[in-house]
């Protein structure tokens, strides 16, 4: 088995200091679905004490969370030159 952490370790990223996706924390706290926790192919959404944290460092830029999130997720592509660098896309 390859954990998602190990698989993300195979991907190369240039990480911006500012996240390009920002969950709206007040809405996440009352969200009963929390689809992001299982739908993100990179498992970048984590829940802790009801709060949802997103780690943009390993974002694969697919947009699945944008489509699936029932709330209005603040979603953008990373800045030019930043983000994921696929080599075998």
């Amino acid at each position, binding site marked *: *088995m*390859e954990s*998602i952490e190990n*698989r*993300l370790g*195979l*991907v190369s990223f*240039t990480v911006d200091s500012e996240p390009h996706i920002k969950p709206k924390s007040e809405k996440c706290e009352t969200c009963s679905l929390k*689809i992001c926790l*299982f*739908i*993100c*192919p*990179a*498992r970048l959404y984590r829940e802790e004490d009801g709060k949802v944290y997103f780690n943009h460092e390993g974002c*694969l*830029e*697919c*947009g*699945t969370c*944008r*489509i*699936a999130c029932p709330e209005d997720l603040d979603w*953008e*592509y*990373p*800045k*030019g*030159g*930043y*983000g*994921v*660098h*696929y*080599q*075998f*896309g």
Partner: protein
Amino acid sequence: MERFDAVVIGGGVAGLGSAYTMAVNDLDVLLIERGGNIGEKSVYGGRIYSWVFEQYVKGFDNAPVERWVKKERLTFLDESESVSIEFSASRACSFTAILTKFNRWLSEKVEDAGGLVVSGVKVEDVKREPLRVVADGEEIGCDVVVDAEGVNPIIAMKLGIRKDWKPSEVAVGVKEVFKFSESQINERFLVESDEGLANLFIGYPVFGNGGGFLYTNKDTVSVGLVVRVDFAMKKKLEVYDLVEKFRSHRELASLLKGGSMIEYSAHLVPEAGIHGVPERLHDKNILIVGDTAGFVLNRGFTIRGVDLAFYSGVLAGESIKKALDEGEIALAGEIYQRSVEESVIMRELERFRKALKVLENTRLYEDYPKTIIGILRDVFEIKDESKKLYDSVMEKTKGKKLRMLMDVFSAFRGL
């Protein structure tokens, strides 16, 4: 302010198709790609239908083709067993390729033809009257914009050209790439060095709208899964571990043994067919192409996207050229609209209008793989008494024959 005849947003296959077509027609074209290098944001399954590139790209012989697909295999999976049907073709109409490299090659073609390609710059906005593209805090003037930003249509939505996707209209695809030696692949998949296999999987672990794929490249194998977002939401599928489950199936484990994983990727796929294509493909002289326009055809056992994307780029480029020649650039959008409607893109999407409905049928993904596997197990597994094929079929399809017959009929018609 810098000015171009046309600015293309996005250096994926659709954007490159339009930039290439405009460049060879001597238009002054600028393509802007947000990735640091062309191709590094592109992800797909692994197979490209070649017709459009053979027809439109000079020097296609030198394209970074991995293998020509001569073997098509369809595999039904339940939790532990599998049934495969294989078609061995005498001639190939598609090839496997690494899209990252393929797009990089296409961008060289654009530059050779005189187009300007800039990467590492993100287009933030498009402003109208006069038409300008905003990137890097600067504005670039142009007569026409080709929006090829991909499946997340951020700009097209902002401009009101298209609506966002519903979870039922897109699928999330995840892919892993494994490194082998060329001879390992030849031996394992029984192919010659320039020949490849395309293998689609139905059933485990998705048992719903979606399926798996495996493509052989020169010395790598691409393997992954596609699952519709609404289905994943409903079933609470842990998408990050789906490919892991898939790969642990006996069938896949033996195909991938000894390979070294070198990349993991994810991407969205438009899956609504003609229902995902907006009625208007333009707003005056802003044209949408490729995934942004929803030009992907899912027939269940084949998915076509890359050729349609490139072709829509070609049509956009040709339309812009025509409009400029006629001295009325405002017509570009209308000409493009008409040429897409009359083209193979819309004819194909129209022909498979019902495919989406057929593929909604969850029996296709769970009941049938399990039924087929069950029947074949009965036939081949001999303990003391063997079973007649007829008896097994009758038993396994008890009470569902009519429904199955109708499913098969509608699948034939729809796909």
